[in-house]
């Protein structure tokens, strides 16, 4: 197994499958009366969050606690970071306190990679800028595999703001590794330069893609990262790239609708769709805990 999880590209097919299989077993713990395993007793996991996050931080916290690790939550607000401490100094401080793993979210792409050079413990990238969010890709792959029964040959449409989306980047890489066929659907202004070199097809027309899709993943329109006008208006975006009830009915009967959260209801996804039986949005959150338990177990379980 690898020492850190910084990018979905760190995982080859065998390792990614091992993580998903391990997560399947971890999921059974959620159904027990005692939702606790002794596996990581005495280890310390630090959640180092420089960006706001509810579900990812909580999910990592629950995952670490279910494995009996000690969890320290460290958010930039209200810490010495607001006094101007650098990432490196913060990292070395955590290191001195004996962190076995650091889960980091940072607004700068590549922050997790830098951190991995400074600390001895394992580093898990929980989202760095617009770069990667590998555990989200793993939980999405897990959700697709449990709902659709397989990943090989599954047709996935990733719809929306690909340019700013670390979820899309990690998903494209991981899904390609696992044999799924990915189509990116987005306005041309929200596609990154060099997208033609990604292992994915590109389309500008959502309605043309939907009938041949097994899983459609809606991305959040990230207004906080948008400094330019990437589309004329929110209503126009919703009309062309939003998933409403009519578009959902154009999907094959078995197809699922995914969203990494948090949702802009009425923007990229209609409430009718988000609350439908095809929606896996709440399931994705539950699966996130199992997948993160698997990642922490595989990264930390064998280390002395």
């Amino acid at each position: 197994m690898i020492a850190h999880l910084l990018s979905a590209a760190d995982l080859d097919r065998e390792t990614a499958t091992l993580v998903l299989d391990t997560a399947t077993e971890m999921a059974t713990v959620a159904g027990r009366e005692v939702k606790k395993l002794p596996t990581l007793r005495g280890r310390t996991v630090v959640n180092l969050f420089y960006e706001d996050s509810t579900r990812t931080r909580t999910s990592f916290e629950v995952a670490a606690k279910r494995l009996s690790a000690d969890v320290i939550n460290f958010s930039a607000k209200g810490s010495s970071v607001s006094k101007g401490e650098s990432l490196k100094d913060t990292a070395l401080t955590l290191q001195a306190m004996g962190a076995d793993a650091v889960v980091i979210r940072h607004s700068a792409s590549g922050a997790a990679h830098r951190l991995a050079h400074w600390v001895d413990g394992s580093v898990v990238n929980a989202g760095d800028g617009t770069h990667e969010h590998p555990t989200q890709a793993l939980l999405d792959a897990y959700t697709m595999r449990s709902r659709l029964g397989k990943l090989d040959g599954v047709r996935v449409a990733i719809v929306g703001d690909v340019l700013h989306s670390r979820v899309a980047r990690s998903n494209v890489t991981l899904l390609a590794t696992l044999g799924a066929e990915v189509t990116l659907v987005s306005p041309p202004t929200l596609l990154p330069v060099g997208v033609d070199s990604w292992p994915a097809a590109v389309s500008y027309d959502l309605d043309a893609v939907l009938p041949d899709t097994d899983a459609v993943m809606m991305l959040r329109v990230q207004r906080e990262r948008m400094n330019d006008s990437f589309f004329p208006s929110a209503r126009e975006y919703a009309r062309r790239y939003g998933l409403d009830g009519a578009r959902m009915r154009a999907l094959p009967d078995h197809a699922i609708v995914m969203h990494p959260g948090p949702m802009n209801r009425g923007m990229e996804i209609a409430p009718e769709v988000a609350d439908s039986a095809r929606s896996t949005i709440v399931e994705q959150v539950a699966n996130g805990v199992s997948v993160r338990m698997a990642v922490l177990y595989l990264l930390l379980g064998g280390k002395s």
Partner: protein
Amino acid sequence: MTAPPADLPEGRPDQGAADQANSPAEAQPAQPRPILNASDLARITARIAHQILEKTRGAEHTVLLGIPTRGVPLAHRLADRIAAFEGVDVPVGILDVTLYRDDLRLRGTRALGPTDLPADGIDGKRVILTDDVLFSGRTVRAALDALNDLGRPSQVQLAVLVDRGHRQLPIRADYVGKNLPTSLAESVRVLLREVDGDDAVLLADREVR
């Protein structure tokens, strides 16, 4: 329950406790030596099934939990025999103990097996843990911890195919297929049809993992 001394390799004491002093290197064949064959295994499973029926007075409210990998087919075989002898259906489950092991840090992480308890659970039942080889006792300790998190059995018993000695914890088996005194340098390999395509117990020179 103790195997007749005639089966034992020459020059070994009957019980395993004393033989740590033995030098394992001298005059040992390179090939693994067969200790039990398929018909031996069939007789042993039948005997343990009878012992379970006798000791539990008919195996009511009893659950067999196999510890992966080879404890699982053993548990199924015991349940089959019990059903054949007295027509009692004993539920069979799987108990993976990987996450409860104390040697993960030393040996590295391993892939997890499934844990699958019978539908009625284990609360208030007599649980018989089943494994192929009883050695240090650490696997059984892990299994007892795992059981503790899964429910509250009224009683826990242990059935093993081979007891090779060298216990590191105060644990003993209730049902033993064969007591096999070994030296620490030897390794016991159990082959089962369901997993390995063949039924046999072999004794080899070195610990192969």
